[in-house]
């Protein structure tokens, strides 16, 4: 009851922190898409490159987020960005690489060779093939990768409150340090709702992006 009262009294604060949260994740994932998708496309050309890149990315993702934040403090402090928004965004960009690169890579690599051949046979240039055949077919899977990245990084961003990046995690960190269950629960519930809502929304987008002809079973 108290918690509800607290949440009600602080609706605008919750709203602005949620926006901070969304801003970090969306800016970072957008940048990650701009880097990850081209990398994913590029590594379809070489199995060795693919193995190496995917391996690096999967190693990155195993590093606990708070440890990554910690590692960035000494690295970014000299240019004055040891804590706050910037390291949070960088961490999210790094964590997003694996799901986005991997899904782009597998989606393109899994395009039926017959379709690719048909494209060549009809005289499409490699670029036309990519635009008209491969990307549309790979779109749902790439989108699934983006969705994975976003949902995962909503969680990462919550922890970024500890390096002063703001967002909904701030309620949790204050709730813990001030032993104030109202803030703590508000934060935990809000960030969970955000994650679930975004997940469902992106699932919907993913469905929209699936070409009508292949509406069945998209591997996430």
């Amino acid at each position: 009851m108290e918690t509800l009262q607290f949440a009600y009294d602080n609706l605008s604060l919750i709203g602005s922190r949620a926006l901070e949260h969304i801003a970090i994740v969306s800016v970072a994932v957008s940048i990650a898409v701009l880097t990850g998708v081209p990398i994913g496309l590029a590594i379809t050309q070489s199995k060795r490159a693919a193995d190496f890149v995917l391996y690096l990315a999967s190693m990155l993702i195993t590093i606990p987020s708070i440890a990554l934040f910690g590692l960035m403090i000494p690295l970014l402090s000299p240019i004055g960005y040891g804590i706050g928004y910037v390291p949070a965004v960088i961490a999210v960009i790094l964590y997003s690489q694996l799901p986005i690169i991997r899904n782009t890579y597998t989606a393109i690599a899994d395009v039926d060779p017959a379709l690719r051949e048909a494209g060549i046979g009809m005289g499409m240039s490699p670029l036309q093939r990519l635009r008209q055949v491969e990307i549309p077919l790979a779109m749902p899977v790439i989108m699934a990768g983006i969705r994975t990245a976003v949902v995962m990084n909503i969680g990462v961003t919550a922890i970024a409150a500890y390096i002063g990046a703001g967002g909904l995690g701030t309620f949790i960190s204050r709730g813990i340090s001030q032993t104030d269950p109202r803030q703590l629960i508000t934060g935990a519930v809000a960030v969970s709702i955000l994650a679930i809502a975004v997940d469902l929304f992106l699932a919907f987008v993913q469905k929209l992006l699936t070409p009508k002809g292949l509406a069945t079973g998209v591997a996430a």
Partner: protein
Amino acid sequence: MSDVSVDKVAGTAPRLALRGGTGRAYKLGRLIPWLVLIAAVGIWWFTGDTPEDILTYQEDIVYLGGQHIALVAYAGGLALITGIPAGMILSRPAFRRSSEIVLQVFNLGSTIPTLAIIALCMTALGIGTMPAVFGLWMATLLPIVRNTYTGLRNVPKMLIEAAQGMGMTPRQIFWRVEFPNALFVIFSGIRTALAICVGTAPLAFLIGAGGLGELIFTGIALDELPMLLAGVIPTALLAVLTDFIVGQLQYWLVPKGINPLR
């Protein structure tokens, strides 16, 4: 890092599940500890801190590291001995109708940030080791259950039919056909789950369960770089090492005929 688990349903698309990619990457795996070490040395060099500054925390590292490992071991162990049987039970024909709903809930549950899980555990159970282990267990459980379930469900029907036709008992079908053929997917789930477990373990400090998180969070709060690094480096190493070990187990324990890595 919170949720690698959205690796998802590895069974339907094994290639998506390969965290490392292929066998080749496994050879690269031996490089990892070195890479981390090089990075650490780089940081020292960059910041002008010397290893001695960090090594002043040696005692803390050993003590808190022990706590950290214990937390991961308890929570991970619990998640294994509960999650795998739960996945097995859910995959049985008798539970098929309810299992889909359960899995839906689980999928939704796995989107909940781990910090939120830990925070909620503190509100519900108080502070200390027990709530922390409980929270870690919750966060670790889902991928194990899900992959066990999907792994078993995705064993091709025809294999079960062939086994039946040759006179295997239901128990023999399970242990000789279904389980070994689901093993790779189950291992992928375990790997994901333990990565989450190790990644979340530093947060246990926040609810009074100690661990290496103590050095990290305190280091950040006090802007005490050697202390921070004394927590960060072992934490990262531990995470990478755990993943490496589970990866090796997966590589060697999953029968060659169904192991896409070999």
